[in-house]
């Protein structure tokens, strides 16, 4: 019984992974594979649901491209019975978001096998599009080389998106199968390990040599996580300094035009329609006049700060730090920095770690008789 | 354990050999052992068994143990316990019954008290009042303890000084209460 096996990559990382996916897709019980693929018409990577093994030659799960959080796509695939099992290749933060969505009944883990690959991060979409006019496979190679070779993934001066730089959870621990890059001999073979029974069952059926986890992995992971943590702390410090009053926060968000793209991009903002887009916020004309009259002037559209604070209150405990909010902002507001920084204390307060386990209930739906007594009273 | 064995009470005995106590037991049966009687009793400090303790023994038919104690003999019939007993039990009366029972049995440890009482009443019967000298003389004689009069000497002198003791010996004919006493005895024997 193989808990860990090896994926041969002596022909290169991407060809090795593609072969692994082809082999997976060839299993009769697997209906399709969802994996980031290069679009045929452009040097762009997007999650793609592949049924034809030949099409897996475009698969590229290692490219530093992260145009959207695929958890939302997996949600679409799994909300109801699909009639076949899908293997989804996801980043760690996508898996965490997926687990949150399962708790919110927006996705199901039945008929799904998640393959996670140690995440080396990605560029902001704008940056990736600038870098990827060249051969994407080649860019991917240089990126992986930098990221695993002690560098920080910077290629030609383009560096990781801030959220990725600050991500301290690159290992996809919630996956059924984990493909290890960190600490692996990337010239020869990548260890793949089963984290669940489902993963183990699939792994057993694939024709892969058994192995043990490389000893170097633990250290490699620790080094990366420590670096990311310090980057995260630095990011937090900077962000806090920029937002430590309501006025500063307003300035931070000054460019916001209430397009609500951030919440569309957010994998855990699961509402069909954001409350700010509903009739509750269809204010009466007299209300605008009232506000203007009271404060002397009122910015329009109104409710900008209200919107962002509400999003923090609603989704802060579930924020997985994927950074898609920043990616989506047309005005370039560094939203991920704000969200990651402001959410951390919320998650700590409820000892809630989004994406850690399906067993953990979202904090606001639960309670205990005796808790948080420090917030009661006026002393 | 050995001690427990010795002092264990066999409730099987409860139904037997308690005829002497039955009447008194019936008086205190509704007792709930709340202890109000003990708490109320002004003489409790001098008693070897607390009243509650004693009533419990009565209920359990421990005639000998009850009669071996001095508790009931120390009852001064103040009626506090009867007044306060939540069950409204006639405790003072039951104490009196115990005294009578003890008196009939002439229990050695209660001899002094019994003689004192009997001579006191005999004096009253004869004279319609207590003739202290006669009463005490007879009491001392019956106690047959040559040192006893000395124990009362101090008190006797004090009472004498205050004119509380009549020194004259009985002289004025027969007691006026004899008929009364006889009538009571007759009525009691009838009922």
């Amino acid at each position, binding site marked *: 019984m193989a808990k860990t096996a090896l994926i041969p990559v002596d022909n290169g990382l991407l060809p090795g992974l593609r072969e692994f996916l082809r082999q997976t897709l060839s299993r009769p019980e697997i209906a399709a594979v969802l994996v980031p693929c290069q679009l045929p018409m452009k040097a762009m990577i997007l999650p793609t649901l592949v049924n034809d093994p030949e099409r897996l030659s475009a698969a590229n799960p290692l490219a530093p491209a992260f145009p959207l959080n695929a958890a939302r796509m997996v949600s679409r695939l799994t909300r109801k019975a699909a009639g076949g099992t899908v293997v989804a290749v996801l980043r760690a933060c996508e898996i965490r978001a997926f687990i949150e969505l399962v708790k*919110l*009944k*927006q996705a199901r883990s039945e008929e799904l096998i998640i393959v996670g690959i140690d995440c080396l991060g990605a560029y902001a979409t704008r940056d990736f599009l600038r870098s990827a006019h060249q051969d994407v496979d080649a860019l991917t190679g240089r990126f992986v080389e930098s990221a695993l070779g002690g560098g920080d993934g910077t290629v030609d001066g383009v560096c990781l998106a801030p959220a990725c730089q600050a991500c301290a959870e690159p290992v996809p621990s919630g996956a059924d199968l984990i493909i290890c890059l960190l600490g692996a001999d990337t010239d020869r073979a990548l260890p793949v390990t089963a984290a669940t029974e489902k993963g183990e069952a699939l792994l057993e059926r694939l024709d892969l040599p058994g192995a043990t986890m490389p000893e170097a992995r633990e250290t490699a992971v620790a080094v990366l996580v420590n670096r990311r943590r310090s980057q995260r702390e630095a990011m937090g410090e900077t962000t806090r300094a920029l937002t430590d009053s309501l006025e500063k926060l307003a300035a931070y968000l000054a460019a916001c035009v209430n397009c609500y793209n951030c919440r569309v991009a957010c994998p855990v903002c*699961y*509402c*069909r*329609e*954001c*409350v700010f887009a*509903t*009739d*509750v916020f269809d204010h*009466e004309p*007299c*209300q605008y006049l*009232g*506000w203007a009259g*009271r404060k002397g002037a009122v910015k329009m559209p109104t409710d900008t700060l209200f919107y962002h604070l509400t999003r923090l209150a*609603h*989704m802060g405990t579930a924020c997985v730090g994927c950074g898609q909010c920043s990616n989506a902002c047309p005005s370039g507001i560094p939203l991920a920095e704000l969200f990651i920084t402001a959410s951390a204390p919320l998650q700590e307060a409820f000892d809630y770690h989004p994406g850690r386990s399906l067993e953990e*209930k*979202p904090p*606001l*739906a639960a309670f205990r008789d005796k808790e948080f007594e420090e917030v009661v009273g006026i002393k | 354990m050995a001690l*427990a064995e010795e*002092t*264990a*009470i*066999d*409730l*099987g005995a*409860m*139904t037997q050999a308690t005829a002497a106590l039955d009447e008194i*037991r*019936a008086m205190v*049966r*509704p*007792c*709930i*052992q*709340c*202890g*109000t009687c*003990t*708490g*109320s009793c002004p003489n*409790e400090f001098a008693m070897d068994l*607390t009243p*509650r*303790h004693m009533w*419990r*023994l009565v*209920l*359990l038919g421990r005639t000998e143990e009850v009669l071996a104690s001095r508790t009931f003999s120390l009852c001064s019939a103040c009626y506090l316990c009867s*007044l*306060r*007993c*939540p*069950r*409204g039990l006639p405790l003072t009366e039951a104490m009196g019954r115990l005294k009578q029972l003890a008196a009939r049995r002439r229990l050695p440890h209660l001899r002094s008290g019994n003689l004192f009482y009997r001579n006191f009443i005999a004096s009253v019967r004869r004279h319609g009042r207590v003739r202290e000298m006669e009463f005490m003389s007879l009491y001392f004689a019956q106690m047959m303890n040559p040192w006893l009069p000395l124990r009362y000497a101090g008190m006797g002198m004090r009472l004498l000084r205050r004119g509380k003791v009549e020194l004259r010996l009985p002289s004025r004919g027969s007691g006026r209460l004899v008929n009364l006493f006889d009538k009571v005895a007759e009525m009691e024997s009838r009922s």
Partner: protein
Amino acid sequence: MKRKIGNVLVVGAGIAGIRSALDLAETGYGVVLIDKAEHSGGVLSQLDHQFPTNHCGMCRMLPLVERDAGGQFCLRKGLFHDNIEILLGTRVTAVAGEPGRFAVSLRTRPTWVDPQRCTGCGACAPVCPVEVPDAFNAGLGLRRAIYLPVPHQVPNAYTIDPAACTRCGACVSACPCGAVTLSTAERKDFRILVVDDEAIVRQSLQSWLEDEGYAVDSAASGPAALEALEKAEYQLMLSDIKMAGMDGVELLRQARALRPDLAVVLMTAYATVETAVAAMKIGALDYLVKPFDPDTLVPMVTRVHEERLAARDRQVEVGAIVLAGGTDYFDPRQQEVNPYGYGRIPAVVTSLEFERIVSGSGPSAGRLVRPHDGRPVRKIAWLQCVGSRDIQCGADFCSSICCMYAVKEAMLAQERGGGDVAATIFYMDMRCFGKSFQRYRDRAEDQGVRFERGRIHSVIPAADSGDPTLRFVGLDGSVRDETFDLVVLALGQRPARGAAELAQMAELPLNPWGFPATSPLSAVRTERPGIVIGGAFAGLRDIGESVILASAASTEAARVLHGAGKSLAAAENEATAFRDVSRQPPRVLVAVCTCGSRILPPGDRTRWVDRLKRDPAVQETIFIDRICTAEGWQALADAISAHPPNRVLIGACHPYVFTRRLRELGRLTRLHPALMDVVDLLGPRMAAAGEGAEAAHDPDSLPRHLAMALARLQKTCRLELEAMPVRRQALVVGGGIAGMTAALAIADCGYPVDLVEAGDRLGGNLPWIGRTLEGHDLLALLQDTAARVGRHPKITVHADTRVRGAFGQAGQFYSTLENTGGVVQTLEHGVVVLATGGGEAATSAYGFGSHPAIFTQKGFQEAWAEGRLDPGALNTVVMIQCVGSREAPRNFCSRVCCPTAIKQALALKQQNPEVAVVVLYRDLMTCGFAETWFTRARRAGIVFVAYGLDDKPKVDAAGPEQPVTVTVTDPVLGRPLTVTADALVLATGIAPGLPADLAAAYGATLDQDGFLAEAESKWRPVDSLAEGVFACGLALGPRNVEESIATAAAAAQRALRILERERLPAAHLTAVVRHGLCARCGRCIEVCPYEARRLDEDLDRILVNPARCQGCGACEAICPNGAAVLNGLGMAQIFGMLDQALA
């Protein structure tokens, strides 16, 4: 909806009266609820904290179905329901008639304060010169003769205490609203004319009668009297017969011609009595023989006056009468001796006084301090059984409530003292005889409450401090003294004041302790059909039991009405066709009551109009002086008719009192009352006045209140929800006495019942129990009940049948039955009553099973009944109580075992006077009137020995041939007792027989001991949390037969509320789902405390069951995007209110 026209009179508006009234009102009957006090709520208006939550929670009694018919606010504020008319300060003066048609006379005491005019401003009280002990604070404070009976009640009109009032009139001039009218004081209203030719007679009569408060004039002759009668109206004329000129008889004749209603009493000398008697034939009411003194005159005049008043008594026709007069507390001063020094030692207080001390509205605002010197209390003692279990003060009964409230009070004291308080309870037996009571007591002990077994005989003041010192005897026999800061007397219960008079009027017998007596085996029925007793009126019940009995009484009342054909006579209450305004933009009519000028100073109108006009939703703003008067209300109705708005906002005073009137207005104007709102402007105005001049003149404050309400109202829409249809039949699971009783009660009210019994016959535990402690024959009861069930056309009995599966919700359940023959059928029903009973718990303790002489109580009873056991052959019987009970894991008291032991012991003694019976117990639970049987058992010579958990009895039964020897330590003697028993009887208690999956199928849950978990142990004691699912009998909790029967009747009543409706309507404040916005995340389902929401997989929608939803809004708060909305209080509405609050 079809309305029943039956009416019920409920006497007593305490907790039981409220429960009974609400039950009947919810079922559709009309209720007249009266109370002799000036407030509703009974003693509960004074109690802030109740066991076991140590809070209140009375509001949970409010209707769950058709919530809008009752007020949605704290019940201690007052009771408001469409079908309930409340008359306070009212008593019954006569009862006549028969079941179905009683004529009852009610007399309401005038309060001299017009509640319509009084706004509760309080200007009157400070000027009143009289100060008397404040009954609301149990006498701990003082109040004036004009006062608020209960400060938190609405409408909070002041009232005058006639006994204290000196009629000085200070309040009349102080009242800004002219609400006080002492001049119409009733005796002043009764005008007397004294006619006599002797001045001395005239003068003395006038002065005697004026002293009594009557208005008296006099006349010296017949003609003068006639002149006076022409000028003014008199009610009574006292006339001498022998007068110069016109004599008394002639005067009588002429006066009667002038004033036919005039009562005339003639005064006569002895010689002319015959004349006087003859005069009575021509209209004299009575005569007085001279000479007479005030003691003769005054009662006569008072009688005439009372008769006059009686003529004004209100007559009500009712089908049934529920007496729910509650009980009173024992007065420790009434004891011949007052051993506890109550009234002499200031730090000795009653339990009720303690409740007031720790009440937030009490004299020390809830701080635990001594009432007389304000010193913080650190060491406090409770003395149990004060006025209970005390033959000396006429109480050979246990009051049943004091142990638990003392435990509660001790815990409260510790809580208030922040861990700094040492609380001790001195008790004889700790009677924790209910379901959760033992655990509650244990919790108190864990928290450090000290339990000391022993009765305190007296309290004396300490020599130095005067603090109360207790002397008590420890179990070891030592006499100890202990001094406390505060000593609380746990007062027992006594018949309610006036209970005897009421019982006499209703022709009900009293029991030996003065409580009205109920019929055998019924805690509610009386000897007089149609008159039932609810709650603690018949004595010695705690809140939970009172509530059960109140519901049971409602059932009996409903039964009487039904029997009298009332429910067949349906009064069609034409549903109002309300205007559909849903598609119109809001047009609000704002009506402001100026209340003289107290709400609105005349100069401010323009400003208010301008402020409100800023909102285009305001159609018009009008000002009405005293909207509460008939004219004011008419002005409002006229304004609505003139330019029909689609919302009405009223700015006035207490919104509570307008509920019913808004509904009337709705019918009148065809605008749904949900689209009307009332804002309290007077309260804030008065609060502002208290805050000082500056605040009082904040001109924006009151308009802001209106604007906030306006913001909410204009976004309010009428909820158009389809009412849930009700399948109007019931399923009762379990054919014991509880199940049969419930089935009969429901069927008697006209609804089909399916009664499912797993066994082959009905009867449950009755056959083996045989008789009750009191000697009532249960086999006869069983025969009678089973026969009635068997021949009832509405009841279908399914014997040998079990419920295999079920689903559904209130109004529509589906249950699958399977009988032992394997036949399966599915039933549809609207409600279910779980009466699955219970049995005797199994045990292996004390050698049970190893020796033929060791029995359980049931085994003993059966062996005896079947002749396997000869009581005559027994010398000694030992009974051990609490076998496997009142300790983990079965840490509850089964309540019936101690009475059963006493019943068996007494029966043994009766058959064999020589037998010795020894009962080994922990706390003897002969609660209520069962205590008297405990006394009898003691008297019969049965020996009781208490044992502790740490020193249980030891049973030695080496083999079936060997004797059984029991050893136990006597706590008084501290010595072991040994006894060789011919029979050892173990009281193992009750094991419930309610399968968890059966309960779960209906959405109910079990408690940790396997009984049904009630929705609320005090306020909803027979309901499960799932509406439509009820339990009774042993499935609910340990109870004796009579109590089980009461729970069954109560469960039936709760079921009838639902069955009486064709549909379950939704309340205005009910959650709705905006499906287009909903992401089906299901978090609203998780947070809903009533399981009112579910995901319908087929529709892929979240659905709300409006019959379960209680409108708490938890769903709205958890829903991130407003897909869950609490209709009437949605996000947009709160945002609007916030805008206005901060504008």
